[in-house]
């Protein structure tokens, strides 16, 4: 990471800590916002957050690695999460899963080499009456059929291009 980028991130984190409070209870909201902006919380970011809040970086690492929606390894701009729990399973999630892997060319748990998509399983998304359910960043898709998968992924791809450097929130 360039020094100027590091400084920018440092300033962002300082502003976030100032906004949420310089205390331990502010840790989750700060990490969640970093996750939202950068699709992961890097080692450098975790170190700065720890310094700003005044706790050991291992504590921050412990928190980031505990929660399914926080990541310390780089993830795609679009995090595609397919519900794997029982009702979506009964509703036919297996074929949707297969088609997601086909469209993206990756397996579950992987990120595309262009850094655009990560594919993950999710535990129950609370859309059990409308499964199979899919969460793409902050947007939920219900009653997903295998033939809809291409369109869903394609809609995400349209966001890239001239604005690829901007954070993306669907």
């Amino acid at each position: 990471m360039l020094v100027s980028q590091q400084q920018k991130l440092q300033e962002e984190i300082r502003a976030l800590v100032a906004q949420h409070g310089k205390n331990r209870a502010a840790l989750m909201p700060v990490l969640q916002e970093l996750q939202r902006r950068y699709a992961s919380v890097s080692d450098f970011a975790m170190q700065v957050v720890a310094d700003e809040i005044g706790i050991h970086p291992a504590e921050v690492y412990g928190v980031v690695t505990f929660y399914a929606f926080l990541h310390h390894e780089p993830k795609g701009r679009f995090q595609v999460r397919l519900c794997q729990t029982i009702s979506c399973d009964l509703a036919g999630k297996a074929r949707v899963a297969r088609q997601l892997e086909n469209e993206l060319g990756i397996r579950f748990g992987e990120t595309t080499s262009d850094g655009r998509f990560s594919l993950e399983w999710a535990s129950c998304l609370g859309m059990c009456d409308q499964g199979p359910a899919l969460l793409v960043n902050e947007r939920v898709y219900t009653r997903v059929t295998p033939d809809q998968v291409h369109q869903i992924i394609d809609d995400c791809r349209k966001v890239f291009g001239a604005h690829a450097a901007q954070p993306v929130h669907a």
Partner: protein
Amino acid sequence: MWPFDSKRTPLTYDTIEPGTGLAAALKLSRADIIGEVAASNLRGRGGAGFPTGTKWNLAAAARVKDGFSKYIVCNADEGEPGTFKDRVLLTDYADLVFEGMTIAARAIGAKKGILYLRGEYVYLRRHLDEVLDKRRKAGFLGEKIGGVENFSFDIEIRMGAGAYVCGEETALIESLEGHRGEPRNRPPFPVDTGFLKQPTVVNNVETLASVAAILAKGATWFKSFGTERSAGFKLFSISGDCDHPGVYEFPLGVTVTELLEKVGGRNAKAVQIGGASGICVPAADFGRKIAFEDVATGGSIIVFGPGRDMLHVAKNFMEFFVEESCGQCTPCRAGNAKLLDGIEKLETGSCSTAYLRELKALCETMQLASKCGLGQSSPNAFLSIVNNFQDEILGRATAAH
């Protein structure tokens, strides 16, 4: 409205005018508010069924430490597989939920409320923030609510981050404090030592909506629904093999058969009541009642049609628990993995009856020795499926045979 188009029948909550419950509460003394809730026999709607009035009484009596405040936490970390009624409540009845929190705050003397919203429901955040803003402008939140001196209260929304265990109240508090969501030892209970060591009431979304209804219409009215030991009406999230999945309201004490008739699931082979941590009821037992004195539930009902492979169902539940165990205590961390391993043996037809018996003994150990409700209840589905469908599960032929 998209994406919240869960089918639902008209609910009793439709008949509650928002604001009437709070207005009625503000005319009562704090003790009388708690008295009304206690008289209604309302029990926690998240599934554990702790009497709400008792919880509030304990928190009201507890002392605030170092001049901070007591807290009201609304548990909107609805993560039990098959449950989505809180999503519907937060979408269509958010005012009633926030009103319930405000009434609770008045009753126990809290100045601050937190709604802990599961990360999977992030798309509800904007709507909920708007409802809160409107309530602030209308004077239902902030200083001197309803013109009552010394009654100031406000609500903040905090997001979860994809951890089922954070639905456990002490894990939820750990998460709010910026820690890993690992449950605490109890006692001390949150009503005494909760968020930031202050007395804290953690109530489920539906419990708080019911509180607003009870204050609006009275404890006697509420008790006219349900059974003697399970008062009131309850929302059920119904999914799986039925014609009309969605959110339904029934009085507690409804039988599985009655419920299945309503949702069009008459050929069902079994019904999972209470989600992954609940029990699997086979067709022979469909006369059982859904109530705290028989089969208790937070409202998750999953219907399994005649062709379903129950071992596959059990495997899905165990995979869920292996994924969601926080890993803090051994019975849960190692036990769930061992049970999943056992299911894989059953799948390949290589599990002896003696080994199955050992697995059942392990279930008992987990129920007794796990630290929190997750590990204590995770063997339920395994046990009820293995016991009721032993014939279907043992001696499977694999492709090699």
